[in-house]
Structure formats: C-alpha cells, structure tokens
C-alpha cells in the first residue's frame, strides 16, 4: 500500500514540474518566428543560393518543419514536462498517420 502512495507522489512530483516562464515562452516564439522566416526565404530562390538545389531545399524545409513541430509539442503543449503516456498517445497517432501515407503512396506507386 505504501508503495502505491509513493508511486503516486512520484507521479505528481513529475507533474509539479517547472514550466517555462512567460519570457521563456516569448523566446521560444521568437525562435519559431525566425525558423518560419528562414522557411519562407527559401521561396524567394534568388535570395539564398544554396536553396536553388532542390534536394537540399526539400531536406532543409523538412528539418525546419520537424524542429518547429517538436518545439510546439514539447514546450507549448508541455509534452516535455508532462507524463510520458501523453507523448506515447500522440506519437502513436503520428506513426499510424505516417503508415497510412506510406501504404497509400505504395498503393498508387506499385499497384495502380
């Protein structure tokens, strides 16, 4: 019984995390804005020479997108500080969605 109580305590100690301060949130938003700015700049190809390479452009956009996604999910959605089961629920959805896309793509690519 005492074990259960201790576990519950531990659980809530995790919940009683130190959330970022308002200023931290502003800094995170500024970082997101900067990343969006870089993403948008790739549209104006002439501005940055390296983005004229299509493969590099797509890879860069994907990396920036994943970073922005991760920042919002971790800090604004508090996944970094909350119970891991929430992350698991969300990641399960993402993995399934990716699987759906791969299956649909393969259906069109190989079986159509």
């Amino acid at each position, binding site marked *: 019984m005492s074990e*259960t109580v201790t576990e519950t305590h531990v659980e809530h100690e995790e919940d009683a995390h130190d959330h970022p301060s308002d200023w931290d949130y502003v800094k995170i938003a500024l970082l997101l804005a900067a990343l969006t700015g870089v993403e*948008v700049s790739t549209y104006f190809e002439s501005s940055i020479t390296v983005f004229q390479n299509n493969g590099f452009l797509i890879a860069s956009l994907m990396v920036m997108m994943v970073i*922005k*996604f991760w920042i919002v999910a971790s800090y604004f*959605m508090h996944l970094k500080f909350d119970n891991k089961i*929430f992350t698991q*629920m969300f990641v399960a959805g993402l993995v399934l969605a990716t699987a759906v896309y791969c299956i649909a*793509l393969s259906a069109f690519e190989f079986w159509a």
Partner: protein
Amino acid sequence: MATATLESHDTHDDGHDDHATSTGISNTKLAMWTFLGSECLLFGGLISTYLLYKTRRGPGPDNTTIPTDIFDIPFTSVSSFVLLMSSLTMVLALSALTRGDNAATRAWLLTTAMLGGVFVGGQVYEFTSFIREGVGFTHNPASSAFYTLTGFHGAHVSLGIVMLMSLFVASKQGKLTPKHTETVEIVGLYWHFVDVVWIFIFTVIYLVPAE
C-alpha cells in the same frame, strides 16, 4: 487503494482540477491526447490524399490550373505567422490563469481568438481568390484535395475560436478561476495541435516545390 486516492486528492491542490484517478494522471487530459492522436490519422489521410493528387490536372483545357500554380506564398506566410503567434498568446493565457490574473487571462484568450479569426479570414480570402481564378472545388482532383484538406483545418481553427470565446465568456462571468487551469490547458492543447498541423501543411503543401 483508498490511501492512494486520498493522496491523489491532496496533490491536486496545486491549482489543478480536483480529480481522483486510478492512474494518477488526469482522465480528461488523457482523453484529449487520445483524441489528438486520432486527429493525426484524420489529417494524415487528408495530407496523403493531397500529396497523391497535387499534380493531377483536369482532362479538359479549361481545368488544367492546380492550386500550386496560383499560391500566394507571401500572403500565406503572414497567415502562418499569425497562427504561430496565437500559440504564444494561448500559452500566456494559461500562465496568467495559473497566477490568478483573470484580466490578463481574458486579454490573452481574446487575442488568441482574434489571431485565429485573422487566420480563418485569410483562408476565406485565399479560397475566394482561387475561385475567382476559376479553381473551384470540383475543378480537378488537385483542387478538390486542396480545399478538403485546408477546409478541414479551417473548420478546426473555427471550432477552436468558439472554445476560446466560451472560455472568455466564462471568465467574464467569474466562472473561470485558477481551479479550472486544466480546462484552459485542454483547450490550449487543441489549439496548439491545430497550429502544429498547419506547420506541417504550410511546409509540405505550400513551400515544397510541387513538380
């Protein structure tokens, strides 16, 4: 077991809703995350469909224009920025409520709803200009997939605005106190999810070259 339940009660005195759960984590929050996981599947399906059809032009000479031909990237970039910043104002609303600052909570909730409104307004403008260009919903497979995907996202943003305004009204009536932090957090989760979906849509649909 009863002791564990009591402990759960005690440790929730930190401003969260006073729920006792068998898992030690909030059932409402778990339900919201499960819902968001299922929403990934919905948007995964819609995004997959768009990616598969994005270059499918119609067979006739009059319906060969696809959405990627007429995207207004600078305009959509501003809309994306507005939605991204609404995530900041949402998290500031939650932070203000946790501090018990009701006036700031209302101000941030209203700002978030207004930024969401600007985004939806931008989407309506985009749809209208596409239709003016002759690219309607049934124009070709690419346009159908585009309107379905972005339309569903816009509907989600609109629903989020309704939820935010409900919280605003509840706060005005004095029904939103630091005890209801979790309610605001859950609406915030939905709002941030809508934002992360748009982060994906903006990059994959608008910025990645179509052909």
